[in-house]
């Protein structure tokens, strides 16, 4: 015969306590002669009773003062938030997915019984449960990059990439020492950054994972350098500084979030969803701060035009371009001013 389990659950639906019953009848109430004794001032001495019948279970109300209510398993998911037990409006049959038990009601495994301020989940021992989740350790990816030679390979690539960027931005042939100094500057920054995270990791996990931090920080730099110019391209194609700024901020936000989340994952035991939340909020703060500073720092009066002058090489440009006439028509709006009567 199936056993009956009654779980006392919190508002959130999580279990606070449970009791297993194997008899044919489970009496519930505040009195000490019940099978399940509930210390809730709103529960009657003999509040209700669960009985086994052929092919199922019924719940009977024992003329309790505040009544007995059932949230069916299917309704329970949806009504969890607002069906918190409280002073019950006895005038209504059903409230927020709850059904009042008049005499007796058939109940099923998973239904929630509400008496007074107490919620009980009725479960049969054969109730199906979800398969166990895999324990999420430091992910395979981080195990992969926690290797000395891989991390230094990445650092060396970053070293060369920073030199290449410096080369792209110059209009003279730069001396070799310039590339070295830029690369070394970058390397030091990444090493210090990774060092700080390793220290945090050592404090928390007693293990530094320096190579993993180093690889992750370097990857961030590499990806950022390669995909950030997309924002330029997008703004150029649409002739919109706002689009360039939004795309740039978005890329920056996503990448910084990933950077911080990754470091937290390696260095701490924080649950993954908190890692992501912390990373997203932190990076959002950085981005918002940057944008606010940019706009706050803008002078009220700028004596020269603020030209959106981004130009990129004509690879793959598809914009056909307006005629002079169309452009002049579009630009007529720059002459419009409030109360100007145009």
């Amino acid at each position, binding site marked *: 015969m199936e056993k009956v389990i009654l779980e006392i659950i919190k508002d959130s639906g999580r279990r606070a306590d449970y009791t297993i019953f194997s008899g044919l009848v489970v009496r519930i109430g505040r009195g000490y002669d019940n099978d399940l004794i509930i210390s809730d001032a709103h529960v009657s001495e003999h509040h209700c009773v669960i009985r086994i019948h052929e092919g199922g279970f019924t719940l009977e109300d024992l003329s309790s003062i505040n009544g007995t209510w059932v949230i069916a398993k299917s309704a329970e998911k949806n009504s969890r938030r607002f069906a918190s037990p409280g002073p019950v409006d006895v005038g209504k049959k059903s409230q927020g997915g709850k059904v009042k038990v008049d005499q007796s009601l058939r109940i099923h495994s998973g239904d929630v019984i509400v008496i007074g301020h107490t919620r009980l989940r009725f479960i049969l021992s054969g109730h199906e449960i979800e398969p166990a989740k895999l324990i999420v350790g430091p992910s395979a990816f981080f195990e992969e990059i926690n290797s000395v030679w891989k991390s230094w390979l990445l650092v060396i690539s970053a070293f060369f990439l920073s030199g290449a960027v410096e*080369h*792209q*931005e*110059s*209009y*003279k*042939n730069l001396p070799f020492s310039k590339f070295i100094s830029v690369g070394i500057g970058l390397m030091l920054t990444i090493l210090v950054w990774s060092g700080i995270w390793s220290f945090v990791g050592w404090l928390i996990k007693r293990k530094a994972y320096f190579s993993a931090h180093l690889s992750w920080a370097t990857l961030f730099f590499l990806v950022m350098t390669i995909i950030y110019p997309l924002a330029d391209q997008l703004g*150029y194609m649409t*002739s*919109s*500084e706002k689009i360039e700024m939004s795309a740039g901020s978005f890329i920056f936000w996503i990448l910084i979030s990933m950077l911080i989340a990754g470091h937290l994952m390696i260095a701490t035991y924080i649950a993954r969803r908190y890692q992501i939340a912390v990373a997203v909020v932190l990076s959002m703060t950085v981005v918002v701060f940057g944008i606010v500073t940019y706009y706050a720092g803008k002078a*009220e*009066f*700028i*004596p*020269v*035009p*603020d*030209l*959106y*002058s*981004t*130009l*990129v*090489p*004509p690879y793959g*440009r598809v*914009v*056909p*371009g*307006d*005629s*002079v*006439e169309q*452009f*002049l028509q*579009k*630009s*007529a*709006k*720059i*002459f419009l*001013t409030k109360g*100007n009567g*145009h």
Partner: protein
Amino acid sequence: MAPLIQSLRSICIFFFLTASLPVVFADSVATDDFVKTLSAIAVLPSVQDRSPAPITDEAQKLYEKYQRAVYQIRVIDLSSGKKSVIGSGFQFTLQGHIATNFHVVSEAVHAPKRFKVEFLRFDGTVGELDIKAIDVVHDLAILQTKDGYSQFLEFGVSEFPKGTRIFSMGNPHDLGMSIVEGTYNGLLEKSLYRKIHFSGSLNGGMSGGPALDYNGHVIGVNVSTYGNQLSFLVPVDYLKELYASIKNIQGKSGAVSNWSEVIQNQLIDNQKGLIDGLVGTSWEMLPIGNAAVPGEMSDLFKCWGDSKDDGEELYQWTSLRCSSQDDIFIANDLRTGQVTYNYIWVKSKGLNTFRFYRVYEYWFSQPFGFENAKEEDVKNFKCETGFVNISGEHWKAILCARQYKKFPRLYDVNLNLASVDHYKKGLLAEMVALGVTQEKSQVLIRKFMESIRWKK
């Protein structure tokens, strides 16, 4: 990269500035200390100005005869009671009409509640003046005193053979009335408006004073100097026109209440003539790089060229800068009426296309200086950016405009173009038109853009 290219850019701007001489008005505010130090030598202007022309009897006679008709004009700051600007002026009717430069009395025109205009006569009398008419384009103003003197100057003509001896009177640096002898050197035609080229020394404070022929007839009004005996006079014909205009409206209503409206209309009329003239003619085209671009659109414009091909830098540039010769004074911080355009041809000399575009973008991002106006007078620029197709070539175009606060129909307009079809070369073109209406600026910009040709 920025500081390095910035220095490059400033060299270019330096060339531009040295090529176009700065204009200085022949007036200033003299401090008392300055007067004391200079008073010893200032009585004889020809001594201090190292003029090659000796003082002749003619000058002395003219001075004797006409000094009673020449006034010092003072703009008084009402809150402090002190002189804010001084200049000169002269009486030309028996009814007490006095001519001077607009720029001398501009403060009183713009802020009549804060300033008043006074005269100081040869005999030391001080009296109040009303502003009757202004002509901002030619920098003239007609004032009137109820307390006129019996002597006044008569108008003459403003065309003489070059080399004719002429005389200019005024009160330099508040040092006392003076007469300067110099040479008439023709009418300057390459200018927004005609001016007399006067080879003689005008000094601060002489603005608005009369220039006389040997008969004592007014040929022009002192207006500006470039120093070293290079000075300019407003031909008397413009003063005659302005005087005729007040005679026409006389009796209708006395005082003009809204000078801003008057100034705006004068500027609009002036630019209408200028821009219609420009658009109506065919423009000289100049080659630059692979393109042909408008050069001197009319004889109002002068173009200067420059280029750089430095051994170390992996790109070269050639520039053309064209500008109208003059601007119009509206207020101390507001000048307008100028049209300027320039081109920079940039070509890679070993930069790959990405490196080239960094340099190219940098040059494109540098805006014109717009030092003609301050926050009190103009709003912020608004810009429209887009791709434009001009005769089969694609260009990135940015058109910007800012409105004048007191003259809401006028704008400073700025067009920037960058050719974007080529990997290692490009042409940047820029046009600036100061104080134009939306309609006229669009007419000018349309023709400017459509004139640019790319040589295949």
